[in-house]
């Protein structure tokens, strides 16, 4: 693993298991009176969010603070970006302040990869457009493993707006690395083009029919509902919200059928939820729902990621070169 975390594919199974093991000890910290450890004292982490976010940004900020790093939050509005500064100039400016890590959320797919080529510090992808969101996949894997143990052979169904979903792209990679079997379900209009070749290489199943998958021969261990991303939808991907719910929403009835086949089934949602659209309020608040556990795991997993990227021996590379070299 490099000093960046851009894609879930950057992580081997050994890397993932190391991060999740560290996350367990980080999770213990959350239950203590004093939650701070001195591990990253003196490091500076900039959270640069060009897109709106509640849980990812706050959990990265808390994660950095509990590890004793100094964290700064920047958003596109209120920074020089709103004056027209380019992404490259903004990134180089922040990097020139000798920060140790740059956590970036950006609306453009591939923005984090670009930035990692321009700066000296570690770059962590907190969601780039429709590309990837690797820390979300790690915290989903952490939540699943906490409840159902090792994921080898477990069946996870991911349902919803696959075309626009970075959560789905990172999750299929991480879940496959941990040995889970994944089925992805979406209406034909929200199924990414070229997914057939992709599903063959990464070894997951695709389907247009949720009820067939839920009733299929393969009992479901967990179902992950994706948010319908209205802000990324310009055209008519489905006729009405009601029609989407009937075909692809996790309704009370579908949850009952899942529980009847497997009492320990889990319901995940990366948030924010559109209650009544992709997930019924009954299902979101059901005992099978681990949505809040995902949020709680988010801080621990992001602490583990910061620790693994910034605490080791290679992490001193942001220090300026010898005096006079410039």
């Amino acid at each position, binding site marked *: 693993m490099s000093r960046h975390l851009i894609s879930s594919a950057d992580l081997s199974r050994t890397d993932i298991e190391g991060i999740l*093991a560290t996350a367990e*000890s980080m999770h*213990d910290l959350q239950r203590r009176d004093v939650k701070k450890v001195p*591990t990253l004292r003196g490091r500076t982490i900039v959270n640069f969010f060009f897109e709106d976010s509640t849980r990812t940004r706050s959990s990265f900020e808390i994660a950095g603070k509990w590890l004793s790093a100094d964290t700064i939050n920047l958003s596109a509005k209120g920074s020089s970006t709103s004056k027209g500064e380019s992404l490259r100039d903004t990134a180089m400016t922040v990097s020139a302040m000798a920060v140790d890590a740059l956590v970036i959320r950006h609306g453009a797919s591939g923005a984090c990869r670009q930035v990692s080529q321009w700066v000296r510090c570690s770059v962590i992808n907190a969601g780039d457009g429709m590309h990837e969101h690797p820390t979300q996949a790690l915290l989903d894997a952490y939540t699943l493993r906490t409840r159902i143990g090792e994921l080898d052979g477990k069946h996870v169904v991911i349902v919803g707006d696959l075309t626009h979903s970075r959560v789905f792209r990172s999750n299929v990679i991480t879940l496959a690395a941990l040995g889970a079997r994944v089925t992805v379900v979406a209406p034909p209009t929200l199924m990414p083009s070229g997914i057939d070749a992709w599903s063959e290489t990464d070894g997951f199943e695709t389907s247009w029919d949720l009820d067939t998958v839920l009733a299929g021969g393969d009992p479901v261990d967990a179902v992950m509902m994706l948010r319908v991303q209205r802000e990324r939808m310009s055209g008519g991907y489905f006729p009405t919200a009601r029609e989407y719910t009937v075909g692809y929403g996790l309704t009370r009835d579908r949850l009952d059928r899942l529980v009847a086949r497997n009492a320990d089934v889990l319901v995940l949602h990366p948030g924010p939820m559109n209650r009544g659209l992709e997930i019924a309020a009954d299902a979101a608040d059901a005992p099978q729902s681990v949505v809040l556990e995902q949020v709680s795991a988010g801080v621990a997993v992001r602490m583990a990621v910061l620790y*693994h990227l910034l605490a080791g*021996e290679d992490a001193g590379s942001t220090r300026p070169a010898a005096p006079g070299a410039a």
Partner: protein
Amino acid sequence: MTCPDLSAPAPSPPTPDDARDVMSAGDISRALRRIGHEILERNKGSDDLVLLGIPTRGVPLAHRLAAVIASVEGREIEVGELDITLYRDDLRHNPMRVAYRTRIPDKGIDGQVVVLVDDVLYSGRTIRAALDALSELGRPRAVRLAVLVDRGHRDLPIRADHVGKNLPTSRDERVDVRVSEIDGVDAVRISGGAGR
């Protein structure tokens, strides 16, 4: 970044060819029995006593000491694990290591007599980190230190209360403690060093 393979049992580094045993299984067992008695004598019984092992090999040693104390006193005492990885001062100079979990007995450590248990006492930096970690978990009435081997060369003003064996070494020698729970064998070995 490389992480240790967690699916495998804890790693036992290969023993160098010139390794010599300085403590046998019997020596270790006798030393632990003596330390157990010393802890009880010093504490005037087993009231408010908590043993905290420092991973990796301090943990099985702490459990063995607890068994010794239980056999003498006729009652169980609390044992926990204190991982100090997040408090180390040398993280920047060493390869990444996974942070293990800290397990503190449910009743906590406030007002208790905490005995830290580790395999080898060398620079004292691990114990410095352990004291920092402890101070954020609560306020023990007293903290004591029990080690199987004290090999000298302290960098900090720290000393052990209970020592299994004082082992004079040079800095270029290596001391390996092997415990059967992790390595399948009980032994203390010394290797390396000039002129051997």
